[in-house]
């Protein structure tokens, strides 16, 4: 198990989930001046930067089976984030009600948590440390909905 799990904001829940056989990334990295983009709500700030397993209602089917449900989805570039949003919007006309309607950005540092590697589509997960608060770090850029 990763030695930093106890430092994570949802470390206990993640450790408990791993012990039941849930999927968990094998490699993590320390973010150093890492540019990150996230989807957020313009008018419901209290819903921002909350991982899916902590949202109410959570979008879960058949229980929790992946620790990424306690992580925050990020993109490494504006273009990657816009592309993913546009793909999701073409499949889910009301996706903005679930994941947000605006794009936000901020710089991630070592003290914020641990990140997974970028996927080919530019997505990575941030597993936040206890004191991480992206509401203070991220600024809202613009609307992603027509």
């Amino acid at each position, binding site marked *: 198990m990763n030695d930093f799990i106890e430092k994570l904001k949802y470390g206990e829940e993640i450790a408990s989930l791993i012990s039941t056989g849930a999927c968990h990334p094998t490699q993590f990295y320390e973010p150093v001046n890492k540019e990150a983009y996230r989807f957020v709500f313009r008018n419901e700030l209290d819903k921002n930067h909350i991982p899916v397993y902590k949202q109410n209602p959570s979008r879960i089917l058949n229980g929790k089976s992946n620790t990424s449900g306690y992580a925050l989805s990020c993109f490494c570039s504006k273009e990657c984030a816009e592309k993913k949003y546009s793909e999701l919007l*073409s499949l889910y006309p009301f996706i903005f009600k679930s994941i947000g309607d605006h794009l936000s950005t901020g710089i991630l540092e070592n003290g914020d948590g641990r990140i997974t590697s970028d996927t080919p589509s530019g997505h990575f997960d941030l597993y936040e440390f206890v004191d991480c608060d992206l509401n203070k770090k991220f600024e809202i850029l613009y609307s992603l909905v027509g």
Partner: protein
Amino acid sequence: MKSDLGILVDFDFSHLTKVTDLIYFDGPLLSHYIDNSGENYIFYWIDVNSTFNRWLFFRVDLNLLQDFVNKKIPLYDLILNRSELFLYSVDIDTDDQYSNIRLVLTKDLDTSYLPSQKSFYEFKPQSNLSLLALSRKYNSGIMEFRITGDSVNYGSIALSKLAPLIPKIEDIRKDLANKYIKNRRRFLAGDKNAQKDNSKTLALDTQFELVYSLAGSFRLVLRPIGTQTTLIGEKSFSDEFAEEIIKLFNSGFSKESISEFSDKYNKNLIKKYNDLIQYLNTSKLGLDVGWCNNNSQINYAQKISSKQTHEILENLMYLNYDDIEELKYRGKFYSINTHTGAYCFESTEGDDFRSSGFFDEMRKQMALCISFNKIYDVVISRKTTEKVGAKEKIKDVLISFIEAVDV
């Protein structure tokens, strides 16, 4: 959330088992399920309010689903161009409670919920999601063989590729099970009652039955025939056996591990492992093996991609099995080279034994005395060198010959 359409109905969701999440972003958005009779269902997220997420779910033909995953049709067609003219909607809360289940005629669907007509699949199915759910459902450990690579589609594989693979996997399981059971019995040897009690359990915990063949590449999902129950967190025989299987698949990635495994088991098992990897290599297939047991909270996994099979075969090539034995035969020499010390000998005992090799230094000096029409009792030192995946090499040295006196 839009107002409700259709009529309230009951639906037994306990018959549904999740295969995978086809689209996942901060939670599932499009999920593939299968029911007990093998019918495929899709859950499609459509909306959310402060209490519920709303989903549409519908039965779908696997061919249509494959067309969607292979980007031949958009999601729009997957929902609307089915033979069934209805679907269901359901509201699901944070506690996974299902309510407001409604049967809706497809033609009555609110079109604002529907994806665009160019909504082609640009994602990858999530892996390893369903094993935990299956383990919970069957209250048992679940083993999965996931076949990937050439000619493997979402949920289908050419029979010509699958058919040779199954007996190779079963050969390995059988060999490994025999040895594992022997070792386990030896461990329990001091306790006759425990040995007797555990014999049947061991046999059943090392055999599998097919539960499903699932989509998501092509997946064979198996569970142990045995129903050994253990305390939460306690390792069962089936967990131990699954660990051995996964270790075997993992061993190919290092020469040391293969060698250790070979010492622990036997060369036949390693040969069968080699046969399997050879087959994967020539067929351009990959094989992922996974085990998940929710009761004991144990999970193992090992992936072998088609590209990695070459690396494993190279490691296996280094494994030599040398064997030296002394053979005693009665027969005639039919060729001797006194200069090089080479000889050819054949048995006269009616067993077709032949040997070609060299005399040792002392016998080479005496070879001139040999007569081709006489019968001799010989002792041959035979060294057999066998590389995994290659033909065995035999080296014979004749270390004794005496003219037979009782012919």
